[in-house]
């Protein structure tokens, strides 16, 4: 991993964010196992470099982010409040959506995060629409649209990318290719190797990135964001990655994947790789890292505590927020 030319501050920020996502997801898993979390959640463990690299390549709070069912990472990397996130995931009144959304539907409008989405591919047109507003109003904003490999086989992917390219909308499409849609390997349902190839079908640039390398993700997304901001239209970026855990907290994730494959990818852990680069390049010491981690641990602990202590909504609140 080439960390040359980066400020220490920024690299540590990357580290801190990735570690925060990892830690947050581990807590989510704990809460699930303890029976404190209603429903399910899809953790981002192993894929942290993508959200971290991408969301640091935009202007947080100005640019837009549209996420997926596996959305915690995008929210955290975009600066969402951990307590409000965790409270939402536990179905509490103090959550971002007052308990109405849960893990799959967290929206943080104050951070310009337009929402996770429970429908695979459902959020791609929405992201494209945010870019339409930016284009029409000439605001200079860019939208990041995240989705998985399996989502690239939904019609909405196709329709959205076509419009964005035809109209040069300021949006960057990011495939998180963790190689599976639940249990189904992308290889079994799609004949091409690199999904970024699909960019050609629309007339936009397509880029393949090592999704476990936060620097590479950051750089490629930054280039794409700059293109978009200059009015040169969208880019499709495919980040190759892998999820360490199952599809959701209730899925062991081993029935349909080889143990070796999982281990191989764990060896390519994006957090470990950045840490090694930081230490090998004498940018940070083990102590620096420890300090960051300790700080993050505390933040997460506070978020969990906040969420646990928060009240559930009142039944009558179910009738609020339908219409303005």
């Amino acid at each position, binding site marked *: 991993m080439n960390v040359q030319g980066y400020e220490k501050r920024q690299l540590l920020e990357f580290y801190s964010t990735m570690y925060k996502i990892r830690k947050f997801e581990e807590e989510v898993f704990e809460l699930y196992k303890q029976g404190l979390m209603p429903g399910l959640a899809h953790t981002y463990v192993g894929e942290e470099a993508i959200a971290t690299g991408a969301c640091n390549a935009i202007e947080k709070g100005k640019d*837009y982010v*549209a996420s997926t069912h596996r959305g915690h990472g995008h929210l955290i990397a975009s600066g969402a409040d951990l307590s409000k996130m965790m409270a939402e995931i536990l179905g509490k009144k103090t*959550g*971002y*959506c*007052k*308990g*109405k*959304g849960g893990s799959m*539907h967290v*929206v*943080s*409008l104050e951070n310009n995060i*337009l*929402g996770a*989405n*429970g*429908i695979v591919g*459902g959020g*791609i*047109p*929405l*992201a*494209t*629409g*945010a*870019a*339409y*507003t*930016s*284009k*029409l*109003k000439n605001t200079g904003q860019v*939208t990041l649209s995240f989705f998985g490999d399996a989502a690239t086989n939904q*019609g*909405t992917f*196709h*329709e*959205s990318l*076509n*419009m964005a390219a*035809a109209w040069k909308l300021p949006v960057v499409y990011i495939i998180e290719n963790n190689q599976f849609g639940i249990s189904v390997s992308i290889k079994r349902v799609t004949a091409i190797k690199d999904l970024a190839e699909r960019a050609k079908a629309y007339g936009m640039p397509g880029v393949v990135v090592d999704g476990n390398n936060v620097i590479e993700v950051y750089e490629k997304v930054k280039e794409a964001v700059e293109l978009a901001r200059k009015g040169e239209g969208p880019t499709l970026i495919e980040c190759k990655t892998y999820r360490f855990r199952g599809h959701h907290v209730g899925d062991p994730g081993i029935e349909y994947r080889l143990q070796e494959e999982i281990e191989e990818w764990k060896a390519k852990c994006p957090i470990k790789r950045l840490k090694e680069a930081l230490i090998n390049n004498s940018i940070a010491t083990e102590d620096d890292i420890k300090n960051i981690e300790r700080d993050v641990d505390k933040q997460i602990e506070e978020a969990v505590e906040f969420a646990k202590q928060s009240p559930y909504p009142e039944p009558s609140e179910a009738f*609020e*927020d*339908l*219409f*303005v």
Partner: protein
Amino acid sequence: MREITYAQAICEALDEEMARDENVILLGEDVGIIGGNFKTSVGLYKKYGEWRVKDTPISESGFTGLALGAAITGLRPVVEIMFSDFMAVCFDQIINQIAKIRYMSGGQVKVPLTIRTPIGGGRSSAAQHSQSLQALVAHIPGLKVVLPSTAEEAKGLLKTAIREDNPVVFMEHKMEYNKKYLVPEGEYTIPFGKARIAREGSDITIVATSSMVMKSLDAAKELEKDGIETEIIDIRTIVPLDKETIVKSVIKTGKLLIVDEGHIRCGIGAEIAMSVLDDVFYDLDLPIQRMGTENVPLPFSPALEFPLIPDAKKIYQKVKQMM
């Protein structure tokens, strides 16, 4: 008042609202250069430019979802779905995204989005271009559902829809587009959730939607000759529903017939009937009746199609049976 067509009335509403608020945009297939498949946006492309009047690809899910993204980031899109049947192509965007995002976000986002789409049979357009799918959207919480009758109604209700901060499915009747109606000059809006008494009468209440209001009025003229005084309620919006006006009328007449062009099963008729049943049960002379399109797809041949759809004659006969 002057005479213009229903299509022109819609076009005027769009034009006035686009002039009034630069955030209003129109998106859909063929809405631009040719001014719409049913000529409901003639001249707007020239006037407001290609970004505010956008000819889209044939990608209903894509552009309806795009409109949602635009709506939550500051625009007020009006989406045209060329036939209401095609709502099925983008139904996820309508019912799982547009209808729910405000609620799921705990009220963080607003969705000022209007979907305009034509319903109705009668043109030999066959099964995929003739449906009246209001019951499908009315079933889903989070959507307001508007079924204007005349051109005057269409204009005033569309302006209200565009000014709404909530998603509205605005269903126009394709057999009305070329009909001429008296429409007031100048600006006006018509509120949602307030039915209109299209005709006063004391013998029976007909609650009708969309062009069934006009067909009921035609039937009422014949019924009058037989000494039957029909009260006709133009319900205007299914969501929200003005129960009060219906209940008041039925308490007076003792008889209720609901006429909507959608298929009968799980249709608007059953809903309206059950919405008021508690309040009118002991005032009813006979069971509430409903009319709608028979439960078969709409066939192409006019010899098959017309007999399936309610019309003035069938309404007349039904009312006679109810006397």
